[in-house]
């Protein structure tokens, strides 16, 4: 009998489940005698006489007696008239245990069914519409659903393990690469098609077709252009301008220096009229911090100086910084009173508030920009202009 391990014409793998091996006779034709695992059959079924036929793969159950090892699958010929040799045993390994297992499995499934009904009942009687309602509903629906699923899983597992007999089959593999003959035939078919289509012979057709599809390929990129406006200079500025009051975020009220007099305090503020405008606030959010006299490194004058706070942009030791982290734009919301560190909770960029919010740790590269502030005639804090530099994360056009 043929050697089951002999090299195979990989075509069988495909046919096996696409066509059940019917087409072996064609291109793969020779399909090399014992290629079809059927050749292994000892049943005298004539597999060797019909080399072009492919049967199902050869299999071995468990560790069968040597004689039986090669008889398990008769070759399926055209009519499938050959009776199949049984591959799977019909009875469980241990009938006594199986009898018990049967009851356990049934119990699991019945309980699963009950829990499933419980789910339906819970859906019907537990209302939602409040925090506790949602909690109870979640607990009951989830609990019953979990129990149903778990019992179904457990029941099915016991069924497989205890009721179904243990079986181990061996199926042959075939090399993925196709038989050289098939490859040659494929190449021929391919070349024939290419030739017949005239695509290769007539370059003017080919090239003009390619040229015609090019703009079509680019068109989708054009279509995406209106996804958004061009950035222009919009990232360079915020809505802050001279005279806009600083409104406390949350209460929406202006604030006087006297109301903000305890050192170490920090408040989030926004520009008057923009507190509910998320697009504006995403750039214009500001924190103001009150310092004790002498805590701040001041630079006299009206210009930003590295590692210094611009003195003329402050009121009464109150300093205003952009709240938008210069790393990737999270609100730098944490403030440590004792060290005067502003910390961004997203990536821990740390800024020293006494030194012009210079970066002392973390991935941010630039200090938080300082907002020039003053007081208006009513004594409320106002901005005396926009930030001198763009706020927020770096971008390509930023110099």
């Amino acid at each position, binding site marked *: 009998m043929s050697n089951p391990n002999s090299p195979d014409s990989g075509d069988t793998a495909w046919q096996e489940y696409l066509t*059940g091996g019917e087409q072996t006779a064609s291109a793969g034709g020779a399909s090399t005698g014992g290629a079809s695992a059927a050749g292994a059959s000892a049943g005298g079924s004539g597999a060797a006489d019909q080399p072009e036929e492919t049967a199902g*793969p050869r299999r071995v159950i468990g560790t069968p007696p040597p004689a039986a090892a090669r008889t398990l699958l008769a070759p399926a010929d055209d009519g499938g008239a050959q009776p199949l040799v049984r591959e799977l045993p019909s009875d469980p390994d241990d009938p006594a245990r199986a009898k018990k297992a049967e009851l356990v499995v049934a119990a699991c499934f019945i309980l699963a069914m009950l829990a499933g009904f419980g789910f339906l009942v819970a859906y019907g009687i537990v209302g*939602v519409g409040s925090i506790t309602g949602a909690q109870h509903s979640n*607990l009951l629906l*989830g609990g019953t659903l979990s129990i149903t699923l778990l019992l179904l899983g457990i029941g099915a597992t016991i069924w497989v393990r205890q009721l*179904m007999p243990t079986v181990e089959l061996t199926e042959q593999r075939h090399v993925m690469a196709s038989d050289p003959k098939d490859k040659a035939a494929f190449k021929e078919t391919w070349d024939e098609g290419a030739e017949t289509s005239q695509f290769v012979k007539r370059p003017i057709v080919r090239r003009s077709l390619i040229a015609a599809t090019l703009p079509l390929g680019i068109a989708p990129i054009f279509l995406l252009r209106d996804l958004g406006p061009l*950035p222009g200079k919009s990232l360079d500025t915020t809505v802050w301008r001279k005279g806009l009051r600083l409104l406390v975020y949350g209460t929406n009220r202006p604030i006087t220096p006297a109301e903000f007099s305890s050192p170490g305090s920090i408040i989030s503020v926004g520009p008057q009229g923009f507190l509910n405008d998320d697009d504006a606030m*995403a750039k214009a959010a500001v924190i103001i911090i009150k310092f004790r006299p002498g805590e701040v490194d001041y630079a006299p004058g009206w210009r930003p100086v590295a590692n210094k706070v611009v003195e003329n942009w402050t009121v009464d030791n109150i300093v205003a910084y952009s709240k938008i982290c210069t790393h990737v734009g*999270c609100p730098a919301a944490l403030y440590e009173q004792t060290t005067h560190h502003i910390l961004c909770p997203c990536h821990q960029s740390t800024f020293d508030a006494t030194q012009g919010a210079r970066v002392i740790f973390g991935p941010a590269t630039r200090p938080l920009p300082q907002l020039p502030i003053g007081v208006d005639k009513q004594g409320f804090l106002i901005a005396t202009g926009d930030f001198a530099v763009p706020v927020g994360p770096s971008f*390509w056009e930023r110099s």
Partner: protein
Amino acid sequence: MSVERALEGTGTWLDDRLHGARGVRVLLRKVFPDHWSFLLGEIILYSFIILLLTGTFLTFWFQPSMTDVIYHGSYLPLHGVRMSEAYASTLNITFDVRGGLLIRQIHHWSADLFMAGIMAHMIRVFFTGAYRKPREINWLIGIILFTLGLLEGLFGYSLPDDLLSGAGLRILEGVVQSIPLVGTYLAFFLFGGPFPGHLIIPRLYILHVLLIPGLILALVTAHLFLMFHQKHTQMPGKGRTNKNVVGAPLYPYFMAKTGAFFFFVFAAVALAATFVQINPIWLYGPFNPVAMSAGSQPDFYMGMLEGALRVMPAWQWVPFGHTFAFNVFIPALVPLGLLFTGAALWPFLEQWVTGDRREHHVNDRPRNAPTRTALGIGMITFYGILWAEGANDVLAANFDVPLYWITWAARVGIFVGPVIAYIITKRICLGLQRKDNHLIEHGVETGIIRQLPGGEFIEETRPVDEDSLAVLTSRTDYPALGTADTVESDVPPAGMRGGIGRVRERLYKVVTESAPIANGHGNGHGNGHAIESNGHDHAAIGTGAGSGSGPGGSESEDGHS
């Protein structure tokens, strides 16, 4: 009986139209090998199915709109608060739709399980060498699926428009904006203008519910088809070769087992959703660009990117009036890019270096490919350090360690850690190989000391049982470098000449470094190749191992004939 007749009738009806009897019969008997680690892929598939089902449920109520509304629903603490319709409808699903909270939590837990499953599955496939020929395409599909999963997850948890997810979007915007040359434009196109705008949620929504799941579904289908077509790999064992598959048939065994497993996966996420709260957006509050709470953490699969952003020093370069924000786009693109590109190239690099172009259907034990295993552990270490750094503030708070120390440790760790992990892992693998050799050559120590008549003491050993021996002797040598036709001449073969050839030769020595293959007792179980292969002289040219010429012509396959 009537059921049987009905089935037969249906079958005949279908067969008359589809001609399936023969092909489907073969399908039903298709053999599936068994191993616990093969369940990891099924976890992914089933959590994906759960995600599709629960996600569809959520779309019935979710409003992907950023229009401002004032909330007046059942969750009293947020009464009268301005929020987006997206957030309000998520509250509605949570508190006013029966089962809404449960399904939301199942959806979120399944997403986490989906990503965790992908990681575990990928690790399994890598360490067992299951990506080797002919399965490279499936490995690449897997990497694309991982990437799509990351995006799908990020977009999904951004949809409720709560404070936490809004911060995530803000970070996304900052990252996109940092890309040199085109970043600002990309960010404006993505968000439809400045952050946050009113378009990002509806846009992410359609990507999240249609485009990306569609792609994932298509790729999962291709992935499964290839797995089916190429037949699953199997773990080494008695009677298992590169030419067969040993296992249980699809019908009824695999169907029943995998059905049971689906219930277990579903039960696991349902239990988690019932008892473990996840993403309680009602506690975070609606998004606003001014507020942010401490200890904010993304979902676990984004932690590595988060850590990369945190670990990066503040580098930037501002030549000719333009900003290169190295501090943002390097951590956002390089570490994950490195991992994915490395993973994608590895099968081909390994093939090129070792010259092993044979098909492999029997998995490697990780110890039997020490360099691969060590590289994998190195990469996991790299990933793990960045992942832990992503929670550096949480670690600092819980373990009372200064925050900056953790960041500095991670800055050093991502370079030193993988190297140390590589060296240690490789030594462990080689040690385990020697231990296996000892078992093969001398058997299992019994602890029984016997005195021989001459006075000599020996310890008795018993031979390793057949099944274990098959596993122990599953290691094969790599084909020798070079090809047989060059044995006679001094001219090195093509691919071995010049500088690249020398690099390849060096890499070959590193990649194929192994303990010598044991000279077993020739125990007659078909592992004769272990004896035949001539030792460990990799430099020898043309030792006849066929070095990748004939497909499937390896020694191990002949071993069982």
